[in-house]
């Protein structure tokens, strides 16, 4: 089923307004996603970045309506103009596959081990688009060619275990693209793959996005992954949006110390060998009892007393598209002063003994 009104390129396809997803657990209420506001235009790609447990996967699954019944959702998720947050699984089923689909983290697990590749691709085609067998098979072949799988005719009759990991992820992408969705979620699509294959898969997703004019939400923990493949980046921490900006702006002008730390944690090829990897010490906040004030303050080397008491709101920079939540962002006098102090003590980002 198609939505009533096709969203044209450049029009907002997805709008999240103060989306909250909480889980009722025995320990208390887990605020996995806590007030996220975002908007994504048709054809645009968004990178959602954060550590494990920052709520990025839950965010993606909240939008798709794939959460267990223990989840409590507030706010609004507008997809192509209609609020889909309250949709039942039955209503969502018309959107799944046809309008939005998902590529999962582990391609080794996300294909049915007992079903031939061809069948796995043609099933959604028959289901959503009502294709007959011959048309579906022809479309499947075309899809496999689109995702650059060699010898697609042979692959149709192969089982998942006969393909390599990268190949399987390509098949997954082909399946996700089969019914021409307008929104594709890629939840850490390259984490289980090796580095050379990673770049290929990301390029493939980008290429398909342009060809099909669809929007992509790329969920990852790796800022390096999203750098070249997204239009805007949302950095999440403890279920909250802490910085959100167009990709270029973000990399040129990082405001949030957390974003900066994520950036530092990417190993650089230019580093001499045996350079210690920079990490962010401590652990992500407890989502049941989040700390008072800024969530990141307990781990932030630039935190001042105010950070531990009062929660910073999302403030825009001179560019209204670039918002961040920090009292003393990178570039502020307080930050620079602290930075100078840290430099004076001989602090290097990777050297934690200096701070603790």
């Amino acid at each position: 089923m198609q939505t009533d009104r096709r969203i044209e390129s450049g029009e907002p396809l997805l709008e999240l307004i103060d989306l909250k997803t909480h889980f009722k657990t025995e320990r208390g209420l887990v605020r996995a996603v806590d007030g996220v506001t975002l908007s994504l235009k048709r054809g645009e790609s968004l990178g959602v970045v954060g550590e494990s447990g920052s709520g990025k996967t839950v965010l993606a699954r909240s939008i798709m309506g794939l959460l267990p019944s223990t989840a409590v959702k507030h706010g609004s998720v507008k997809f192509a103009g209609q609020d889909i947050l309250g949709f039942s699984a039955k209503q969502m089923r018309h959107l799944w596959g046809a309008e939005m689909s998902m590529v999962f983290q582990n391609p080794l697990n996300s294909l049915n081990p007992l079903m031939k590749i061809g069948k796995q691709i043609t099933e959604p085609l028959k289901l959503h688009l009502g294709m007959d067998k011959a048309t579906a098979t022809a479309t499947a072949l075309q899809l496999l060619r689109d995702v650059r799988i060699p010898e697609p005719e042979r692959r149709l009759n192969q089982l998942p275990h006969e393909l390599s990991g990268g190949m399987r992820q390509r098949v997954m992408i082909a399946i996700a693209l089969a019914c021409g969705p307008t929104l594709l979620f890629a939840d850490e699509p390259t984490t289980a793959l090796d580095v050379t294959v990673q770049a290929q898969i990301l390029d493939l997703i980008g290429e398909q996005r342009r060809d099909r004019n669809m929007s992509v939400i790329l969920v990852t923990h790796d800022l390096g992954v999203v750098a070249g493949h997204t239009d805007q980046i949302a950095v999440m921490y403890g279920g909250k949006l802490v910085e959100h900006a167009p990709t270029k702006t973000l990399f040129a002008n990082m405001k949030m110390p957390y974003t900066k730390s994520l950036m530092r944690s990417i190993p650089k090829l230019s580093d001499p060998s045996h350079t210690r990897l920079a990490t962010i010490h401590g652990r992500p906040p407890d989502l049941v009892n989040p700390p008072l004030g800024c969530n990141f303050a307990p781990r932030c080397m630039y935190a001042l007393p105010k950070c531990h008491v009062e929660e910073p709101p999302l403030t825009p920079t001179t560019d209204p598209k670039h918002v961040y939540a920090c009292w003393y962002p990178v570039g502020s006098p307080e930050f620079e002063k602290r930075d100078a102090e840290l430099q004076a003590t001989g602090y290097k980002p990777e050297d934690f003994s200096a701070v603790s």
Partner: protein
Amino acid sequence: MSDGTIHSAETAQANADGAASKRRLGIGFWIAAVWLFIVFSAALFAPWLPFKNPDNNFIVSGERPPYAPSTTHLFGTDQDARDLLARTVFGARVSLTVGLVAIGMGMLFGGFMGIMAGYFRGWWDRVISFVFIIFLSFPALVLAILITALLERSLRTISITLGILSIAPVGRIARATTISFADREFVLAARTLGAKNGRIIVRELLPNVLIPMSALALLGMAVAVVAEGGLAFLGLSVEKGPTWGKVILTGAGSRDLQKAPWIAIIPIIVLFLTVLALNFAGDRIRSYFDVRETAL
């Protein structure tokens, strides 16, 4: 069924030999398969094959039965001079029917309940698991004795009794297997492509659950065949005609075991080989199809 050491040894060997050996069933499987084929076809076509009438008394005047195995009676005869080969073959008809029906019922009802419980979880799971626990904690033999003592001891009663008893163990395995597959991403992936619950269960879960289940079916059948033998010893097996349990029982007195051991021993060997073959075939089939993890 498979403990870790055996499995890892298998994988290590498979890795050493390359992928090809993994896809071989091995000579042992074929020996088991041939034996099962002989037993099953003999049982199936017994009335049309040149076997003697299992209920006839082939008394030779002047000689006291039981008669030892000879060219006229390949397996010998029992105390009533009934041909043991014929009785073993016709006994197989009953024993194997009991085994097939029992495990069939277990697979059908237990499998269905287990998959429902494992897929939907929540209340389905709680109620069904509770039913399984009740069945498992109720002494199987007592239930079997109760049913067979109250109802007529027909083939149908015995089969259904053992069938009911196999629902819970089969169902528990179906449930556990379903849970392990329901959490896999391909099930979630199917959902995100718009598949309904029914389709997910039939297309995605069932084929995956059926493989460990089918291996289990052969083992379960072996258990049911042995259970029939157990009931026969209590005098509670099928009333009419020979069964393996009953044939063994006729030769199980201590005097007979000393003087005419073949009466009990020959059907015991047949029973033993059949149960062994079922177990072996089941185990080989399971590891043959277990390509998912090892092939990665």
